[in-house]
């Protein structure tokens, strides 16, 4: 049976290999990279679609409701239906808006959210590119995500939108500094900017993960991540009770959907990064406890996925639990609490390096 199937496909495979050999070497590399990009982005888009479903279901259950349950079995097709609806709606461009910037803004917002995945290793040796300055690259790309929001606010030529984009601008610049300092802490612990090296530096079991020596940094990083993605309780950018929907109030149809995709892609990105930088990414928590050849102690993509899911769940949990922060309190938290905490912990880390404790033990 298997042989006959192999015989059936053999000519097709041979033909394909012949066609493949035709391409010049540069072209082959380019096509391979494009293929890998598709392999990363297609599951990511499915994750984005289903995190919106998960959000509505989880918040629903937290508020003792059922959530979407009409489209498909238990509402499983709800995100597909939403996507179809948004695709067929008209994209309305306000008369007095800056048309080009108005349409570029959603693109600018989703581009960094997707491009950052280029350096994320999903398993040992499983990354699109494993560059030396991976951590810096991620930090740089997440920092330019703010342009989409600012430009959207300005180009809409609407009061609510511009108020929102001013809020976002100030908020993201403030939290980026704390986030950067928290990453400096990780950098000191791993001694490398390379993502794979950072994860490998945490090998040795549950207690070798960077979350333990860098506990304050972990909290600062994750909370700053929530603030960077403009999620509740830091969602003053789209505070419904004050400025309707904020920067995307004038957007409709697919242009709005792209903003939506970018927000959720960013949530998944921050969750994945937190899992990787502080919880040892693809490493198993049972490393060192179980035998080395036990299947639970093996490194796996599923550990990484599971850890990222925990943080993604926290994003939804926060939204169901906390009331929105007042704007001056957000600013105070960013500048007067998080930045001093990270700087103090950098000093503590320096002392730990000298005393050779934790990850710096020789």
């Amino acid at each position, binding site marked *: 049976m298997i042989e006959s199937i192999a015989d059936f496909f053999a000519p097709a495979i041979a033909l394909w290999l012949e066609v493949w050999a035709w391409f010049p070497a540069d072209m082959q590399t380019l096509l391979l990279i494009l293929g890998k990009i598709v392999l990363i982005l297609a599951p990511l888009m499915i994750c984005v679609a289903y995190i919106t479903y998960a959000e509505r279901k989880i918040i629903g259950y937290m508020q003792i409701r059922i959530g979407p349950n009409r489209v498909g079995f238990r509402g499983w097709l709800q995100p597909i239906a939403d996507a179809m609806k948004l695709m067929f709606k008209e994209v309305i461009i306000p008369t007095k808006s800056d048309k080009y910037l108005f349409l570029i803004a959603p693109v600018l917002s989703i581009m960094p959210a997707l491009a950052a995945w280029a350096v994320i290793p999903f398993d040992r040796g499983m990354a699109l590119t494993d560059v*030396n300055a991976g951590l810096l690259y991620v930090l*740089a790309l997440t920092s330019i995500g703010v342009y989409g929001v600012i430009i959207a606010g300005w180009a809409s030529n609407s009061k609510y939108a511009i108020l929102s984009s001013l809020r976002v*601008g100030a908020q993201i610049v403030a939290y980026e500094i704390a986030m950067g300092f928290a990453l400096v802490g990780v950098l000191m612990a791993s001694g490398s900017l390379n993502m794979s090296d950072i994860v490998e530096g945490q090998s040795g079991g549950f207690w070798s993960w960077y979350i333990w020596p860098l506990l304050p940094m972990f909290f600062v990083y994750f909370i700053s991540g929530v603030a960077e993605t403009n999620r509740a309780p830091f969602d003053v950018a789209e505070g419904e009770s004050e400025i309707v929907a904020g920067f995307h109030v004038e957007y409709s149809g697919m242009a709005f959907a792209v903003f939506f995709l970018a927000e959720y892609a960013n949530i998944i990105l921050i969750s994945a990064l937190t899992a990787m930088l502080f919880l040892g990414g693809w490493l198993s928590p049972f490393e060192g406890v179980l035998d080395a050849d036990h299947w639970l102690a093996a490194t796996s993509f599923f550990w990484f996925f599971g850890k990222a899911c925990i943080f993604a769940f926290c994003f939804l949990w926060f939204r169901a639990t906390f009331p929105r922060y007042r704007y001056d309190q957000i600013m105070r938290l960013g500048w007067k609490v998080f930045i001093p905490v990270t700087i103090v912990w950098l000093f503590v880390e320096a002392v730990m390096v000298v005393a050779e404790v934790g990850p710096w033990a020789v």
Partner: protein
Amino acid sequence: MTITDFLFFAFAGVTVAAALGVVASRNPVHSALFLVLTFFSCSAIWLMLEAEFLAITLVLVYVGAVMVLFLFVVMMLDINVAKMREGFVSYLPVGILFALLMLGLMVYVVGPVGPDVMGTAALDNAVKHAADYSNTEALGEILYTDYVLAFEIAAIILLVAIIAAISLTLRRRPATKYQTPGKQIKVKRDDRLKIIESDAEVLK
């Protein structure tokens, strides 16, 4: 033309076009965004020069922070485009003169003619680094050994600038009302609420 050449010319073309856009566009917000594009394509060229740390830092610092604040200020201005366009032609000759001067200087300093102060002649037969070459490490090794004094002095100057900027903008305004979160948190029920005894009254 190899793919590297193609990429270089593509990014260089975008850089020049965007730089022209900065001075030529009518709207200051568009100018600021063109400047962002210029930075971005410059950083791509740096990346091709194997200077990945500098390239990413350019994006991180200038695109991610400085230009955001720039845009922030420009966005809030009430811009009279017609007025801003006045004098564009009369300033043009001076602008072109300075542009040519800059070009001449650059060619003189780094170009094929001139005293070769930057040592560019040696770069003609430069070899590519191996794939495991880390620009970050190379920079760090030089900055923290050979040039540590200059580096520390630059850091102190920056610190002084930060403190100066804060002290310039910090002014006491007794008239403004603000909340102290510490006091807000410390409030107990007894500070705000008083329960008093009173006899029941019959309303007539």
